[in-house]
């Protein structure tokens, strides 16, 4: 195993944190504490965590509306994320954005975008800025399978390609755009083939194999810095509905169960145990640590004050 132990621990811990965080947020939602709707990435943890753990602090990410795994992978605070979910002043966006618009410029996050594919051109701009300023870093643009059919996707990949920008496009293909299965969205089955039309490299892989994802990202980073954009498609599955309002009548329970057999956390845990890298007790300790961290985040968020109504019009303009 080429990956150092601390990194393996980080990968495991962050996936479990993501799982707990999402489950807890889902529970809070059913308790009526989360305003609006919420989108969870349960089942997709390996994608965001695997990619982001391979990035440096200076690398930037553009997140999706359900990319809490990307946020946690990039090192964002569970406390401030949960506070933002509850719309509190101490949240990353002071309650202005909510679950769909988490952002932390300090961690290199350009923000989660509520418009599918809306963040891709912005990520291209960030990569342009990095190249123009000569910084030794890349931008990762996260999006889902549905986004690859938006005009913004095509314009952005094309522009990044012709300008050879240091950007890694990561498509989390969870097989559905809301309720529409992939085969009803597009005539191709392997989304990485889209890369050909822009003259860039494309690669599709198992989105539940965190080790593979991590290692691929390390390589992709170096490639992208030297050669320009790359499209990485991670095939995975979303356990819960598109959002909390989703009755999921467009897929079968059997399908969901089949994918759950390939749960990314279980796969990783089993591999770590089998290879003797960590004893079960240590992994359990990580599980508990994650549970505590999430519980602390809930306490922090619930105890935080609401933003003041007088501040509702703050930050529309620079003054």
């Amino acid at each position, binding site marked *: 195993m080429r990956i150092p132990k601390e990194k393996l621990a980080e990968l495991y811990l962050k996936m479990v944190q993501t799982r707990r965080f999402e489950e807890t947020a889902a529970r809070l939602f059913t308790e009526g504490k989360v305003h609006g709707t919420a989108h969870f990435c349960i089942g997709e943890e390996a994608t965001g965590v695997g990619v982001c753990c391979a990035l440096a602090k200076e690398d930037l990410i553009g997140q999706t509306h359900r990319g809490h795994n990307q946020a946690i992978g990039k090192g964002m605070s569970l406390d401030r994320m949960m506070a933002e979910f509850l719309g509190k002043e101490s949240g990353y966006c002071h309650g202005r954005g909510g679950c769909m618009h988490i952002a932390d410029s300090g961690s290199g996050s350009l923000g989660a975008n509520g418009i599918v594919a809306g963040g891709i*051109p912005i990520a291209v701009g960030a990569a342009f800025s990095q190249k123009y300023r000569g910084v030794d870093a890349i931008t990762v643009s996260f999006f889902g399978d549905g986004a690859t059919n938006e005009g913004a996707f095509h314009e952005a990949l094309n522009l990044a390609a012709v300008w050879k920008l240091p950007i890694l496009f990561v498509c989390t293909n969870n097989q559905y755009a809301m309720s529409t299965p992939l085969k009803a969205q597009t005539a191709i089955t392997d989304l990485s083939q889209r890369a050909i039309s822009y003259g860039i490299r494309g690669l599709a892989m198992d989105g539940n194999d965190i080790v593979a994802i991590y290692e691929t990202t390390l390589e992709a980073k170096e490639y992208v810095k030297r050669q320009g954009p790359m499209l990485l498609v991670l095939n995975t599955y979303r356990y819960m509905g598109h959002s909390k309002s989703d009755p999921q009548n467009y897929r079968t329970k059997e399908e969901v169960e089949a994918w759950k057999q390939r749960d990314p956390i279980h796969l990783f845990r089993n591999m770590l145990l089998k290879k003797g890298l960590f004893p079960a007790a240590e992994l359990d300790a990580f599980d508990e640590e994650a549970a505590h961290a999430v519980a602390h985040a809930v306490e922090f968020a619930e105890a935080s004050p609401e933003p003041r109504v007088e501040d509702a019009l703050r930050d529309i303009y620079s003054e």
Partner: protein
Amino acid sequence: MREITYAEAIREALSEEMRKNDSVVFLGEDIGVYGGAFGVSKGMFAEFGPERIRDTPMSEGAIVGCGLGAAMTGLRPVVEIMFSDFVTVAMDQIVNQAAKARYQYGGQFKVPLVIRAPSGSGTGAAEQHSQSLEAWFVHTPGIRVIAPSTPRDAKGLLKTAMRGDDPVLFLEQKLLYRMKGEVPEGEYTIPFGRAEIRREGKDVSLITYGRMVARCLEAAEEVKAEGIEAEVLDLRSLAPLDRHSIISSAKKCGRVLIVHEACLTGGVGGEIAAIIADSEAFFYLDAPIRRCCGSDSPIPYNRTLEASVVPEAGTIAEAIRRLYE
């Protein structure tokens, strides 16, 4: 004082700022060797090179989005959209992204992005290349909207836009590009939200902007012979609006005519009328607040028809007279 054209004034603003600040980059279609569809960036490619003057593919969404991403990460981009009608192709990036980024993310990002676009009718470019769409963006919190009417104003306002940290939609009326006007040498800026009285008067206040400023001045001369002294107030800045000047001009004159080439219904004129009606100026009104604006129609191709759907000096003068009925 020296006289240069509106287009030259804009070029000067762009070039001067680019010389001063390396983080200013200019993106757009055909702005490089070609010099821009309206010649605004002529010669700039030779001075600044392909890294800073970037020809883009035809992808308004990506162009604006790229500008936005760059603005959020330390650069100060200027983006040119070839015709303001094409803002529609980039609407998500302008309205849902650029106008929201600061507020949505709780103030974490500044957005020093300037989007310049030639606007308005009169060149025979017809329905899809002649619109005046400022009202949509005046109605979008988070973005500034500027519409200069003279070369001097264009330079001063563009500099302010480029030095600010908010997204700006900078609308340049196409027919004004060749207009010559006095522009001071040396450094100056014009702040947003400050209208300018082009002609002092006391009987009627003509509140206007863009290409209609000159027509209002002509109309004012025409009615002067009839004993009507019209005041012409050039707004220059549509978001933010100079409410103080609007109200005090209306109060001083007691009769108001709002003039813009953008179509009447839902235009910025309605907003201005409401500001006046809901101010102390109301008690000094001696006639209803009226608007003389573009017809509620797309812009036709035929030259005569094209001219007929926007106000001319004669129609403005007639509207002034009707305020005395």
